[in-house]
């Protein structure tokens, strides 16, 4: 029986007395590759923040590798949503990726050789080694997104959390990116929030639907009921020529 990477029990979140997440129960096993879909405003980002320990749920308990997320040590690699298009900061790509190496034990100490090596390897994995001395603000949105993924990988996490990682216009890059995640899943647990349902169907192991409540049956199938509950309307997803169908036949 593999270890539990993430365990949420009866988690509810209220922001400004508005319910954002309701009674979420979720178990994610080690080395799972879980995709979460759902309508905008359905609480996907909030859920990732709860798992990352950035947001304390109003009620319920969160455990990441058996401990509350605030006590886990450097287990989580968090890739935030690209929401700062005006990013203008005096730091190079390598400076940014190196911050993934920070932790409580190297506080006040300079970066070690091992830190630099890990940062460069993470850059290489994302195909960014040529841009390491480039100013972060000079990159395109897609490149910057990959820098943020490299930064999370530099942490050498056991749990990778990605919030809408594929926003680039280049579909070919997206395909490569998903294949890369697919290789990573042997090394770590991955939870990804995305709109890219065709990629999800092809690469992830399990899919959950989130719209304030979580609809999840620990498999890759989304039943018509789950879909209806999450999106509140029947949506016909046609997934041509895919090895697996996400939506069961109806």
């Amino acid at each position: 029986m593999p270890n539990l990477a993430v365990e949420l029990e009866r988690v509810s979140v209220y922001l400004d007395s508005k319910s954002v997440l309701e009674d979420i129960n979720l178990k994610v096993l080690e080395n799972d590759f879980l995709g979460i879909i759902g309508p905008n405003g359905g609480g996907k980002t909030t859920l990732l923040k709860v798992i990352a320990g950035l947001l304390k749920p109003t009620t319920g308990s969160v455990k990441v590798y058996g401990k509350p997320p605030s006590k886990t040590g450097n287990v989580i690699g968090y890739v935030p949503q690209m929401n700062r298009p005006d990013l203008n900061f005096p730091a190079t790509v390598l400076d940014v990726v190196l911050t993934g190496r920070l932790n409580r034990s190297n506080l006040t100490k300079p970066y070690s050789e091992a830190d630099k090596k890990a940062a460069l390897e993470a850059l290489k994995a994302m195909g960014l080694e040529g841009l390491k001395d480039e100013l972060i603000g000079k990159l395109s949105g897609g490149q910057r997104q990959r820098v943020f993924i490299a930064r999370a990988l530099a942490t050498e996490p056991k749990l990778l959390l990605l919030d809408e990682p594929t926003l680039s216009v280049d579909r070919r890059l997206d395909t490569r990116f998903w294949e890369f995640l697919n290789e990573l899943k042997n090394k770590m647990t991955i939870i990804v929030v995305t709109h890219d349902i065709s990629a999800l169907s092809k690469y992830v192991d399990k899919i959950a639907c989130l719209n304030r409540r979580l609809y999840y049956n620990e498999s890759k199938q989304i039943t018509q009921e789950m879909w209806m509950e999450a999106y509140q309307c029947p949506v016909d997803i046609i997934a041509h020529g895919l090895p697996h169908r996400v939506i069961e036949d109806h």
Partner: protein
Amino acid sequence: MLELLQYEFLRNAIYSALLASIACGIIGVYVVVNRIVFLSDGISHAAFGGIGLGYFLGLNPIYSAIAFSIAVAVGVGATSKKLGAREDTVIGVIWAVGMAVGIVFIRLTPGYVPDLFSYLFGNILTVPRSDLIVMLVLDLILVLTVGFLFKELLAISFDREFAQTLRLPVNLIYYILLTLVAFTVVMLIRVVGVILVMALLTIPAAVSEIFTKRLLHMMFGAAALSLLFTLLGLWLSYVTNLPSGATIVILAAAVFFVTMLYGRGRRRLS
């Protein structure tokens, strides 16, 4: 020109320009990249309350200003979090209260308060030796703290949320930064005064940012520019017989607008 240097007040002015420039080069960069310009300005106005308190208690106002502005710097963060009030509203209130408290204390102080005006608009020509020593100590604390926490400060300035996922003591480090802002503001009050502090905290950093691409280089650039503005401004004020603080600020602002236009042109070309 050189024979002027035999006057102690002028030598002190140059030393204080140098010491203040080191602080505003380093901290100005953090103020600009963290977008805490308004908070820093609030701290400087609150420091005026500390100056008034210092006069009232018969202390050197620089000490009470330091204590007051640290309390405000850390207090603003804590209050807005606890009370759920918007941070900029809290800053606005504290800004006004700081000034009001300062004026009340000064009114309550018996006798004539001689250099109140110099705290409002600065007078680099009246910095006593004892204040130079305080400035030197503050600079030392500041350089050492930033030296030890450089990579953490970069991470938190760039992306506070991500730094939080690394379990860094993000709030503690942020409060340390605000304390350093308070130190810097108090030093700059000596040079350009409460009202004009923001010019030296923001303009050198903003101009330096156009020409550099890393935080550390930006700090060196900002410190050099700040020194240039203060000394050149001081000389201009001597030549034109205008108040030194205001002349320094107007010179800095002129350079700021020219480089902003240049920066815009350069961005368009690239």
